């Protein structure tokens, strides 16, 4: 049996700042995971990744990351994505300080 598709978001790094961004329903990029478009269908996710990757003038390295959809918006399921959403743990730098 094929593995069930788990919900995802498209994420990347911003071209100029290098920080973490997420793709939204209206084809723009947000710095907040809660604002990201949650993709629940595999074919749709692949298409949205292609759309996102076309925006070469804005982002670098788009990929699909697993999320857990909650009433407050999508949350990371893996600790790597948790760090990307928050920032490093040794200094109060990055998103935790800026958002």
């Amino acid at each position, binding site marked *: 049996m094929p593995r069930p598709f788990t919900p995802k978001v498209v994420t990347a790094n911003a*071209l100029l700042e*290098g*920080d973490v961004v997420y793709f939204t329903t209206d084809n723009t990029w947000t710095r907040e995971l809660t604002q990201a478009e949650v993709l629940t269908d595999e074919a749709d996710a692949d298409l949205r990744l292609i759309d996102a990757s076309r925006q070469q003038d804005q982002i670098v390295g788009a990929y699909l990351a697993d999320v857990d959809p909650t009433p407050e918006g999508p949350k990371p399921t893996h600790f790597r994505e948790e760090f990307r959403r928050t920032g490093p743990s040794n200094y109060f730098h990055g998103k935790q300080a800026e958002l």
Partner: protein
Amino acid sequence: MYKYSEFDTAFLAERNAQFRAQVERRIDGSLTEDEFKPLRLMNGLYLQLHAYMLRVAIPYGTLRSAQMRQLAMIAEKWDKGYGHFTTRQNIQYNWPKLRDVPDILDALGEVEMHAIQTSGNTIRNVTADHFAGAAADEVDDPRPVAELLRQWSTDHPEFQFLPRKFKFAVIGSEADRAVIRAHDIGVQLVEQDGKRGYRILVGGGLGRTPMIGKVIRDFLPEEDLLPYAEAIVSTYNILGRRDNKYKARIKITVHENGIDTYKELTEARFAELKPQFEGVDQEMLSSIRAQFAAPAFRNAPTDDFDAAYKADPVFRAWADTNLAAHKVEGYAIVSISLKKHGETPGDATAEQMRLIADLGEQYSHDDIRISHEQNVILPHVHKSDLPALHAALKTLGLATANIGLISDIIACPGMDYCALATARSIPVAQEIAQRFDALKMEHDIGPLKIKISGCINACGHHHVGHIGILGLDRAGVENYQITLGGDGTEEATIGQRTGPGFSYEEITDAIERIIRAYLEHRTDAQETFLEAYRRLGADPFKAALYPDKAEGKANAA
């Protein structure tokens, strides 16, 4: 110290101008990321988890105070006010913006520094013993040779697309303070029957397949260094495996073909190359040597030092751990710890860098070193200046007396910054350092090297830590494997895994259990952890780490 020639300056200005144009073309959309990525990597610009990262080479770990001040200025103006010194004698800036990078590179160029070949499958920054030119035990200062290798390897047309990255390290004494046995090529200055030459090692490396370098020439005559190095690298360039990234390093090439075959091929290539080197390299080397002439040491009394040593226990503790023997009487080599308990190993703030620059200028003949252990060295300090130096270091938290002790930990950036990481390493180092500081055990434990990597690439040298810690991702959870008995010195040894790993919450306790087992089993306070491990083997430590398992075994028996 080496000063750029006109050629160096012009080359660097041209490279920086090219990169500035490349960045502009990336931003205006004429270059895609696929096109731009190799260009930025050639200039040391990575993209990490939260931002870009710029890796700047500090050739053979040597800085003048003006260079250190410029590194501080860059940290303040274009980054978040600090820099991270690494095990390969580089400094990494963790937060530069793409648009600013050309300006940063120009600012580096002003002080004869750059980020070229700090990435990519090229010959990387040539590292050296951080005590070079000062150590009591050296044959000669290894830095002129490192500089010669730097000039030869920088922009070397044949070696811009090697099968994989390639790292040199150079030392001038039997004691190996630069881990040359874990480098692709290790060079050791030696003397035989009154003649200078080199012992050459090849095929060392860490990463997923750790290997200790093998001797390819026990005594290479002085004038043969460049043609021989070129023969080794060009043999690798042809023979190295480009089909599999994990088998592409020279350590695998040497391992798969055997050192004898590798040596044969190298010697044949050397015979071809040798006639092409007509002695220009030796002329260059002697002019480089002149620039590394020893400073004018002074002959002065050391009464101030003796008095402070007697009167001030804090100074005494620092002097006992952070000083090393200098070749000139009355002088000392000072290690400034960047490992204050609870701080990030290897990080220095702009303010700290500036203070170090001032102190290096005032007390160390304008000579500052970065060690592969992520500390800063002032190599030439007269003992009578040490009390004043120590007092100044204290003002900015730079007087921690822990060199070579349990809290003097090497840690790679790990999951806090690195895109390749499988777990964090910095907070593990912070917690271990704080734990043993709180327990006030560190001086009783004595010499001990803990090294931590956040993934199998082993940038934190965990394989050669007396205690090595490797952070992995086990089913979405951070998990830390422990190795014991590693050694990065002339007795280089790869550490052995103890068994199953520990969670992030458990790892500091696990380390404490190992340490308590050592304290219990050592013959006396003179027997170091490594000596005890070598005498006892892993069993008592495994028993301390996995008590349930040991009981299980006993029950079964």
